[in-house]
């Protein structure tokens, strides 16, 4: 609880979180304005898919920065050393810090999407389950990239390193991961499609997108070929859970193994 309170006060003073949230709010409202023309059937789903497609440009990079700088400032202010010399070790520090980060980022984010729902009600027929799936998707996306950000903040020594690492991670998941898969796509066959599937859903952006689109019922896997059936060997929700578990654990472990207690700045 102390960590959450501390994180909250720090974010109140800093502007990063509010700037990030204002970007998200601005995008949401602008998409809503654009979508008021979608008075035709299923406009609600069209809006949410468009909103998600826009937000994935921002949420990962913002969460990477918020997570990374949050850890890094503990190094800068020497509070990390102080905390670690008392009763905490780095594992418990990172665990509590991560929980605090999730809480501080998700609370206003969820609050915003609750308010946003009220705006939506004026324009569309609301599908409560679909909206829940959407909000859950956004929240999970934020969590996984916050944890990666915390990992970056743990092992980086300077702000420039953080910026470089965060941009690299964002660029990798946004472009490179799928680009590599596209390069090997012609060689995918029934024999190796499961490995391809695992690699595909290792990208949090794809795992969350698939969960969202199938969860809202807009993406259908009816009449699948044998190859596609082998590719989708389990439900999208399980792919997402696996993806989350993998990246949260890997990020946590890397942070613990390679963390540095002090920054250069």
């Amino acid at each position, binding site marked *: 609880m102390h960590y959450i309170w501390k994180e909250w006060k*720090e974010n109140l*003073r*800093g*502007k*990063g979180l509010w*700037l990030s949230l*204002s970007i998200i709010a*601005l995008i949401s409202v*602008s998409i809503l*304005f*654009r979508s008021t023309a979608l008075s*035709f*059937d*299923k406009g609600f*789903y*069209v809006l949410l*898919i*468009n909103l998600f*497609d826009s937000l994935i440009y921002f949420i990962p990079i913002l969460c990477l*920065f*918020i997570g990374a*700088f*949050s850890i*890094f*400032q503990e190094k*800068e*202010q020497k509070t990390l050393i102080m905390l670690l010399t008392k009763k905490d070790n780095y594992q418990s520090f990172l665990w509590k810090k991560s929980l605090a980060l999730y809480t501080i980022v998700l609370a206003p984010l969820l609050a915003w999407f609750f308010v946003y729902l009220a705006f939506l009600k004026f324009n569309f027929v609301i599908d409560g389950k679909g909206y829940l799936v959407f909000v859950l998707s956004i929240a999970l996306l934020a969590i996984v990239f916050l944890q990666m950000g915390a990992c970056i903040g743990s092992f980086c020594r300077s702000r420039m390193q953080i910026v470089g690492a965060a941009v690299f991670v964002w660029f990798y998941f*946004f*472009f*490179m*991961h*799928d*680009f590599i*898969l*596209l*390069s090997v*796509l*012609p060689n*995918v066959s029934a024999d190796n*499609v499961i490995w*391809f599937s695992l690699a*595909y859903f290792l990208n949090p952006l*794809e795992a969350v*997108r698939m969960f969202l*689109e199938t969860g809202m*019922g*807009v*993406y*259908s*896997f*009816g*009449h*699948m*070929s044998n*190859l*596609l059936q082998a*590719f989708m060997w389990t439900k999208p929700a399980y792919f997402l859970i696996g993806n989350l578990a993998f990246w949260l654990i890997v990020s946590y472990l890397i942070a613990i193994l390679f963390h540095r207690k002090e920054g250069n700045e």
Partner: protein
Amino acid sequence: MKKVTLFLFIFSLFFIMKPEKNMAAENLQQRIDSMKEGAVVKLQDRTYEGNLVIRKSMTIIGSKNTVIKGNGHGNVISIKAPHVKLSHLTVEHSSMSRDSEEEYAAIKVYTNGNTIDHIKIRNSFHGIYLSQAHHNTISDNEIHGMGKGEIAGQGNGLQIYYSNHNLLSHNTIEGTRDGMFFTYANNNKIDENHISNTRYGLHYMYSDQNTFKNNIFTMNIGGAAIMNSNHLTLTKNQFIFNYGNQSFGLLLLQANDNHIENNIFYMNQRGIYLDQATRNLFQKNKIMQNQIGIELWASSNQQTFTQNQIVENNFPAIAVAGQGTGNAWSKNGKGNDWGSSFPLTDLNQDGIGDFPVTYQSSLHQLIEDQELTSLFLKSPAITIYEKMNALLGHNEKMFTDRYPLVTKTKSHLPLYIVIVLIGLALLILIKGRHRLCITFGRNGKKI
């Protein structure tokens, strides 16, 4: 005492056996049979047991809670006389058998000139089945299937078989196998139907000269699949959000000489998908925000695309397995509006771009070779893939529009957003120009 006991025993048997069920069924069938030609039967707010066979021209009108429930064997209502009118009924529980000699339906029509309106259908194999039935009107009906999870085990919302000159309008169909299935059915008029969550909203086989207007196809695996059918007219229909794997708004397969005008293809995986189709005209359609606007296989020839708005698609048009012959991207000096992806100048202000639009892509090879390509159509990585292949010279020409249309789009909102963003940035810069570092950390400490 014995007599009283015997009386009570026999009387109680009536409660156990529930004879009213069979009596009601016999009553309704008997009542229908006993009517004269042209009679009007008004049904009460209750459940009547089917199945029923109508052998005389008559009108049967129900009310809000009138249900005709089949016995699960055969059709619930079979219309075997012409000029029958059914309205305001709920019809349910036909046979779901796929092993029987015929396919069953909630309402099966064998005759001509009937009117079926305001009927709710559920829990049946086919909804309404026109079997060699002509000049019928099927309107304002609601047909609910079992959803996408059950495709093979159920039939179609409207099954039109060897039936001509029918009017199908204002029907709502949801969750059936195909919304409307036509086979060997010509000269039908299909207006303002709303079909969602089916396999194919419209499935067309060997049926010619039908017209479709103002229908809405949403969230189907395929919006409309038109196969082996010619001389159709599709106007002002909406194909929206047919979004799943290998989905499409409109598929033309071995379909020729069709006229597709003023339709909306929005947010489908493929807006229009053409395979082995020839001489089709696409005019004034809006093809927007699809993953692939138009997928044109090499076997498709002599298509004409003119005055269409083909904008904001991830890929505007992809020619797969080579260019077909005789495909034209303009007609009478009017091409298509390709949106901001293809910046144009129009110095003489005639609304036609000063130079042709040519689109090149390398995606066609992947689409041809690997079906999993569809998983990447929304990925930002595909842009890099295209750029990389352009550098390596692997791109091929997908189309050339010699007379692209120049449209002035009114878009105030992006400007508004830009102004707000600039204002926000300025505010932060001015207010905290000496303490930018606290934006992401530093615990509010000034430096």
